[in-house]
């Protein structure tokens, strides 16, 4: 009985294009919902989570010495063969890298170098804006790697930013804690 009624209801619905009207109502509702996109270079910028795998950086120990012991394990495990390490021995008899180069043009940001390192010297940080016009500029040396920003501490938010093309192409931002981007996602 109720099934027959259901079927009649469905047919009446079809007669008045109920499903089409539902679809139209849904898209109309979405039209006035907040967009989830960020105005990336001009106004906003995404802060990565601590787990984010961005540009590599080399760490220093408490004395300011470079932590890397030039064991070349990262170079061995790297699937893209993009790390080149040449060791030297300093006056205290410690091994350090004389040359430490990462070809980020080839790197696939798998993070295996970070996992392999016995000295906890290399890690993948938060920086993700390092595009360049020449692949040669993407080969990063030891001293540049030491200066790169480390892992994000907060993150997962959107902060106000500004595109600065004066000196270099740069997305500037001052805040460290943004609004939660997920709050704009409408789930229906």
């Amino acid at each position, binding site marked *: 009985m109720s099934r027959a009624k259901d079927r009649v209801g469905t047919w009446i619905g079809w007669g008045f294009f109920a499903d*089409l009207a539902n*679809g*139209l109502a*849904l*898209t*109309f509702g*979405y*039209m*006035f*919902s*907040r*967009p*989830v*996109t960020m*105005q990336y270079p*001009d106004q906003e910028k995404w802060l990565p989570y601590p787990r984010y795998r961005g540009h590599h950086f080399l760490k220093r120990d408490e004395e300011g010495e470079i932590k890397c012991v030039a064991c070349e394990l990262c170079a061995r495990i790297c699937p893209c063969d993009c790390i080149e390490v040449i060791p030297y021995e300093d006056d205290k008899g410690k091994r350090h890298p004389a040359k430490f180069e990462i070809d980020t043009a080839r790197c696939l940001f798998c993070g295996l170098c970070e996992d392999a390192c016995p000295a906890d010297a290399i890690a993948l940080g938060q920086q993700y804006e390092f595009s360049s016009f020449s692949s040669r500029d993407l080969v990063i040396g030891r001293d540049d790697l030491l200066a790169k920003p480390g892992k994000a501490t907060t993150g997962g938010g959107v902060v106000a930013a500004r595109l600065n093309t004066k000196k270099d192409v740069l997305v500037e931002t001052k805040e460290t804690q943004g609004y939660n981007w997920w709050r*704009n996602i*409408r789930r229906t």
Partner: protein
Amino acid sequence: MELAVALGLIVFKVAFLIAILLLLPLPLTWLERKVAGHMQQRMGPMRVGWHGLLQPVADGIKLLTKEDHIPAEADRFLFKLAPILALAPPFLVFVAIPFGESISVLGTEITLYVSNMNVALLFVFAVIGIEVYGVIFGGWAANSKYAVLGSLRTCAQMISYEIPMGFAVIGVVMLAQSMSLLDIVRAQADVWNVVYQPVGFFVFFVAGLAEAQRIPFDLAEAEGDLGAGFHTEYSGIRFAFFMVSEYAIVLLVSVLVVILFFGGWNGVLVPLPPLLWFVLKVAFFVYLFIWFRFTFPRYRYDQLMAIGWKVLLPLSMANIIITGVLLGA
């Protein structure tokens, strides 16, 4: 002197119309992309001008400066003819379209139409039929699989949709006892035709969607399965011609729906200037077109034909008969 003034007026009106029709696609593309963006929780164009308002201008400059490419195996004559054939008829049709009664400027009454033909409706349908040749030639001349498939679909679609479209307006003509669009609007001064002719409106609007080749009936340029359909091989300014033609037809169908079924420039409740009423109604239907585009999926080819022949055609015929019987009684 009289003749010169009249002639000058006509030339001015035609120039004005052409300018408007050529410029309107700019805001329309912007609107379409904005609406699409917001319906998909994006923002649409944002970077050129305030909220991307100058984006269509940038696109236009891009299209103008692009290489005008003609495929090596193409039929060069037809290939060049097709965009013009697609563009000219929608413009031509607007000659017969009234936008209002008249306004007085400096003491002289200026009518808001170029010509008041007594067979305007027939003229509209006859001329708009030519537009299909542009699409068919374009697809055929390009000598590409996608383009030919697109234009074949257009052929079949046009044949099956012009007939119910033509039948749908017969009810309106019966009510107004005239084929002149001006008389049709005047006959709706009290009650809009959509009240008497809901079925006619439905058939006309659906067939109009198919005529304008918009989703859910955009089989001719189905991006998903045909690349870009009949204009796959076109580039640069010739492609722009097809785009302008598409928007002109969207506009035309909206204008026709308003004139035939929604009382033209006759307002309800709120006393606004007639021209404003007209523009508002047309804008609503243009928005409806865009809204449909980003809501509905595309019909399959056989479904499209089935709707045309098995639903719309019988509906429009029944509409004529019932209207005739009710008018006679």
